[in-house]
């Protein structure tokens, strides 16, 4: 039985026995096209669900949306990386795991070729799901998670600044990065607050820098690296580098990786008297 058959069978059973009202999963309009989210509330439609290398999106964002919550108790399909977001949301009291069924899919890596998107991934196998389907091969032996960032940091600060000036000049402040991010869940984002205006809202370089610094830092120690923001960006700005920076810093300084350990105390929000730095005189 393929993983897809098993997935269909599981979802049919969950819907038939009424333990969930809706299944949040992936569907495709044509093969070789990126999958989009579907919300299946009828057993007859379960056949629409797909599982292949095009299931890139992180669906956990939908667990927070009021319109989706109104559909009733959900079952959600997650990959190992999406599950990390789920753990952070749980830790931050945004979701109640008892109020959902989490279906974990063992993931060989997404995209074509998978290495391009998922190189260095070490969470191919979901670990905390209610139902886990499939068995993933062990991750790559070499740790290449931060390879892209390390290569970028070889540039001089002036070159880096020039790179970001060029990249962020394309930003149109559509806030798709924020909307797509499962961990950007503030009811009212700081950029929408105007008494006083903390961040210049115009789509100029000044506003774009301020916004991207804010967005990246509000995810510091929380970002799970699902790349939803980068995929959502219509201007094709590689926001991964910013997210990788804070993730790497959190791991290097505090041995913390968001969404890996259910018990670990989040980096921001906690502190230790033993925190080490050398830059404060």
């Amino acid at each position, binding site marked *: 039985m393929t993983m897809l058959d098993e997935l269909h069978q599981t979802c049919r059973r969950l819907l038939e026995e009424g333990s969930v009202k809706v299944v949040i999963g992936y569907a495709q309009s044509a093969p070789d096209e990126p999958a989009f989210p579907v919300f299946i509330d009828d057993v007859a439609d379960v056949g629409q669900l797909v599982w292949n290398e095009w299931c890139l999106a992180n669906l956990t964002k939908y667990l927070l949306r009021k319109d989706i919550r109104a559909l009733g108790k959900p079952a959600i399909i997650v990959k190992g990386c999406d599950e990390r977001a789920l753990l952070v949301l749980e830790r931050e009291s945004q979701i109640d795991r008892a109020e959902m069924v989490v279906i974990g899919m063992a993931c060989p890596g997404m995209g074509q070729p998978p290495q391009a998107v998922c190189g260095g991934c070490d969470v191919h196998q979901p670990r905390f799901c209610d139902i886990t389907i499939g068995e993933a091969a062990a991750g790559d032996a070499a740790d290449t998670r931060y390879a892209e960032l390390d290569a970028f940091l070889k540039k001089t600060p002036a070159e880096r*600044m*020039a790179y970001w000036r060029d990249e962020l000049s394309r930003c149109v402040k559509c806030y798709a990065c924020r909307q797509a991010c499962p961990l950007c869940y503030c009811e009212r984002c700081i950029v929408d607050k105007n008494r*006083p205006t903390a*961040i210049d809202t115009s789509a100029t370089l000044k506003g774009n820098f301020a916004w991207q*610094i*804010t967005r990246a830092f509000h995810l*510091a120690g929380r970002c799970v690296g699902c790349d939803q923001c980068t995929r959502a960006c219509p201007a094709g700005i590689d926001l991964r580098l910013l997210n990788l920076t804070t993730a790497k810093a959190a791991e290097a300084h505090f041995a913390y990786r968001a969404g890996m350990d259910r018990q670990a105390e989040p980096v921001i929000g906690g502190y230790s008297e033993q*925190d080490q730095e050398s830059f*404060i005189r």
Partner: protein
Amino acid sequence: MSETEAIRLPSPPAPLPQRGEGSRDEKRLPSSPDQPSAAAGGEGSVFEPKIIAYVCNWCTYLGADLAGTNRLEYPANVRIVRLPCTGRIDFNLIVKAFEIGADAVLVSGCHPGDCHYTAGNYHARRRWILFRELLDTLGIEMDRIHFSWISAAEGKKFQQVVSEITAKTRQMGPYRAYHEICQS
């Protein structure tokens, strides 16, 4: 009798500046740093950097105050912004300082263990550790962002830190790279 009473009457207060006059974003520090010689006059004059110091109310602000009461002279380039605690110093304030024309930023508060609110400075320290790395990836000049612990008794240290930062920033020149971003 009536004469003295008249003398005692408080003079009418000067009109307060209207809040909301002009956009907040258009507010800039007086005299753009890109024309440093305008105030000093002519070529060859020394560049005077603008430095914003975000300090906590309980330690560094009192340290600066002590420097003043002890008549310790320190450069007038520093603009002190007093906040309740280093834990209150939002990273956006640092970005904002550069946006409005600062050439360097100092963030300073109580020594570890001395926080008036017990742990504000520990929280702040953690944030700065991560924030500095983010700014580094963005290519922002790290030599322009300074952090220090200055207690209420360290007027001398405040003087030294501010003098050092001013000298260093004067050497580096205005922070054109970020100011250009904010003008485009």
